[in-house]
């Protein structure tokens, strides 16, 4: 369908954007890549009075690495992060997930901040942010807040961002030496949202697992960490038996949603398979990176 009428503002600076947000509050929607918002407008699932287009705000784009953190501006496009050597070197899990988002013509406009602010539970980047305990920096007129990933995702398409706040950057911890990663995904067709997705980061030290992080996409209304599996893995040496047990624990206590793409039982089985595959791939990757 054609888009419904709306007012349109195109601020050039972050402070102008924040002023506009304070003025319009929940009457406004921030327009980043538009890959989720414009379909919502076309389908009449969102009816904001005003769009605040942040595409012209230069200071919101770019990747910088400082003090063990990769700082990614909210307007950084998915293709730009995908092509960034800094991202590949410092946040390999993010680099592994990016090519799985939609298609080239989607990633050429879609943004890191847009995907994380949209908070689709089946999307790749929320699982990555949750696995790595990324930090979200939001700015309102009274200043900035830093929100940990565990508190950012509140529910289906819902975050703890207040209506007067703009997501300005996302900070990912840089991977330590000996860390291997994998993003596993099962979808019907290439480029579709995941039926089940899994972000895995595994750090090895002297042959034993020193840090294990697993976060599922598509298993709940928010991305979820598989903490029981993580606890099991810590301190152990990688083996097929260990990974089988981790797969069991990761999926034991969860009750994934059922929809036309798969039943709850199916999602659990696929989830267990992604844990086994993901751990094996991340362990191999860790060995390569040592």
């Amino acid at each position, binding site marked *: 369908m054609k888009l419904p*009428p709306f007012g349109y503002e195109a601020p050039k600076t972050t402070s102008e954007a924040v002023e506009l947000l304070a003025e319009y509050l929940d009457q406004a929607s921030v327009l980043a890549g538009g890959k989720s918002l*414009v379909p919502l407008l076309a389908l009449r699932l969102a009816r904001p009075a005003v769009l605040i287009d942040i595409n012209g705000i230069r200071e919101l784009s770019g990747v910088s690495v400082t003090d063990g953190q990769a700082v990614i501006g909210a307007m950084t496009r998915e293709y730009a992060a995908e092509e960034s050597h800094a991202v590949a070197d410092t946040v390999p899990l993010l680099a592994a997930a990016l090519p799985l988002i939609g298609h080239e013509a989607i990633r*050429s406009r879609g943004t890191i901040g847009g995907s994380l602010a949209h908070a689709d539970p089946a999307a790749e980047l929320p699982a990555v942010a949750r696995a790595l305990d990324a930090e979200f920096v939001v700015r309102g007129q009274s200043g900035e807040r830093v929100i940990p990933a565990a508190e950012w995702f509140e529910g289906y398409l819902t975050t703890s961002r207040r209506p007067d706040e703009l997501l300005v950057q996302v900070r990912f911890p840089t991977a330590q030496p000996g860390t291997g990663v994998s993003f596993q995904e099962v979808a019907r067709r290439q480029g579709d949202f995941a039926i089940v997705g899994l972000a895995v980061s595994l750090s090895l030290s002297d042959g034993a697992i020193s840090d294990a992080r697993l976060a599922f996409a598509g298993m709940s209304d928010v991305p979820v960490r598989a903490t029981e599996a993580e606890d099991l893995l810590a301190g152990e040496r990688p083996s097929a038996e260990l990974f089988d047990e981790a797969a069991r624990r990761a999926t034991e206590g969860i009750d994934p949603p059922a929809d036309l793409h798969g039943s709850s039982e199916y999602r659990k089985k696929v989830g267990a398979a992604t844990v086994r595959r993901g751990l094996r791939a991340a362990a191999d990757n860790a060995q390569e990176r040592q």
Partner: protein
Amino acid sequence: MDITLRVNGTTRTGSPEARKTLADFLRDDLNLTGTHVGCEHGVCGACTVVLDGRPVRSCLILAVQAAGSEVTTIEGLAPDGVLGTLQQAMWDSHSFQCGFCTPGFVMQATTFLRAHPDADEQQIRAALSGNICRCTGYQSIIDGVLLAAERARLG
């Protein structure tokens, strides 16, 4: 809102409403009806055009957002009526039937082959996976792109 942009190498101006998509602006205001509009929410790829060198869905971009940009549409690929390598190869391979999806596939494949001249079949399939064709079953489209890649390599 008054905008100026470059389309297929020519400077164009217009005053679209904010809610007008780039796809509708190209078709209705600039009379460039080669760009097709299918789903109008980003999933079919028929409206794919090249914006500042990258393939994009013109149904998900507002016309006002394209101000100052360089846009290439299907009309820009054969300005003198002479088909380019990819278009000729697709013609020779009988790639399409009804033609509705054609502009999107051709724009997507053009930018992809430019960046990846040595792409194999698997990579080409992945690159075109965001475009939907309701007629062909895709094999003839893939054949056309493979033939174009081969002809380009042979010079």
